[in-house]
């Protein structure tokens, strides 16, 4: 469980000039972002824009070639174990061990994130209840539907109450009811002080839950600005302008 001092002035997550090559090409280039507590940042971009690479680096699964990533002011590239307690990550395809049940997954993820004994049991019970996973608790992950897998992945990401929640296309394979539930959870997390980064292809997702939007193209940040509530058309215009006719980065 992460405890953050309310007096902390620095953003909870800060990327400074982060770059990364993947498969012989530039995946992310000179990316700088800062995210305060309680803010939801939507990360947009066409396929191959560098969203998943960015999120993998923030989650601690991938090292940047250059630049630094700071969690509450501490460089977590020098202390990779910081990611254990501070970050919750749901990758694009929920990573599950097909041989384990839903309940065993939560136990395994809890232990990997440093939870033990009563704290682990309490966290597991709470998240099962919150994400309505009771009917699935004893089911093997290998037989879950795609939507159920996503819910379990989200439960694993939220289990240890991280300070930064990293979601890579979390609405994939969810039905409209589940999408609404997901939005509610994201808002609740933000209200509780969690910084959330949400990568998505759905512009409506961004206008519905995000305070801010960042648009990546060819690994470069092309837009970083506030989301005007309900102004879907403005966001769509900006997105297509960048996707169809990319120009050097600017902040709104």
């Amino acid at each position, binding site marked *: 469980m992460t405890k953050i001092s309310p007096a902390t002035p620095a953003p909870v997550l800060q990327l400074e000039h982060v770059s990364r090559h993947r498969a012989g090409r530039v995946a992310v280039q000179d990316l700088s972002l800062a995210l305060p507590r309680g803010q939801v940042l939507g990360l947009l971009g066409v396929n191959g824009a560098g969203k998943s690479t960015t999120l*993998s680096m923030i989650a601690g*699964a*991938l090292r940047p070639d250059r630049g630094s990533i700071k969690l509450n002011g501490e460089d977590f590239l020098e202390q*990779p174990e910081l990611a254990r307690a501070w970050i919750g990550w749901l*990758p694009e395809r929920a*990573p599950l061990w097909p041989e384990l049940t839903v309940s065993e997954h939560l136990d*395994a993820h809890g232990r*990997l994130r440093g939870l033990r004994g009563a704290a682990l049991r309490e966290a597991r019970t709470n998240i099962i209840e919150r994400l309505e996973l009771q009917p699935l608790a004893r089911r093997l992950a290998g037989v879950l539907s795609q939507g159920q897998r996503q819910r379990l992945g989200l439960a694993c990401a939220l289990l240890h109450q991280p300070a930064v929640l990293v979601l890579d296309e979390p609405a994939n394979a969810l039905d409209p009811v589940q999408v609404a539930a997901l939005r509610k959870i994201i808002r609740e997390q933000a209200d509780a002080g969690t910084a959330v980064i949400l990568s998505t292809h759905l512009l409506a997702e961004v206008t519905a839950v995000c305070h801010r939007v960042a648009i990546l193209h060819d690994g470069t940040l092309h837009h970083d600005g506030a989301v005007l509530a309900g102004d879907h058309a403005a966001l769509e215009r900006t997105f297509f302008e960048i996707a169809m006719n990319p120009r050097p980065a600017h902040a709104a």
Partner: protein
Amino acid sequence: MSTLVVARLEWRRQLVRPLAWVLAALTLAWLGWNFTLLLGSFLAGQIQRAALPDGPGFTDLVGVPLLGQLAQLAFLVVPLLTMSVIAGDRRNGTLPSLFAAGVPASRIVLGKYLAILGWLLLWLLLTLAMPLTLAHATHLDWGKLAAATLGLVLMLAALAALGVACSSFASHPAIAAAAALILALALWSVNLGAQMAGVNGGAINWLAMSTHVQPLLRGLVSSADVLWFVLLIALSLVLATRRLATDKERG
């Protein structure tokens, strides 16, 4: 601590896989049948051997041959058990979850290795229980049995390390199993040509696993043989760790 968390996770995965249970059931049934045959043969020749002052006993004729059979089965069982430990995680996309939890590659490898080793030691213990059940009714050569058991422990540990290394390099579990089987067989019989030519020393014989297992099965414990296994285990685990660390670097 994270090593134990990974070991526990891997152990749990092994326990629910049908493959581990099927392998355990089939091999133990096979070993049980062979134990019965060895015991029958031992009992049938008991009167003739009574005339020999220093004739082979229960340990030489039943205990050690049974462990020898387990050693043969290990060449097939260990690659099948280890094939998915890392290659399976790579296919499931679960390796990044471990990296993201701040678990270093060395601890992931060690944790998975310990889980496999635990299963293999249990397998050895159940096999060993067969001759041990007759300990009260016959004369066991405890020293020889302990040396043979040590040989089997070292051999299983080395094969497991080799299997984990192959799994770390392979993209598919089946490839990992095939590679581990071929490497283990090659390592066992690399000196076959030299042996046939009557050469009993040199680097080629030192390289062969058989050179280091057979003295232990005969009851001869040598630190040089133990060191050979320790080196093979360390080399395999270091290679697996380096491969996994490269996975994290490449993404």
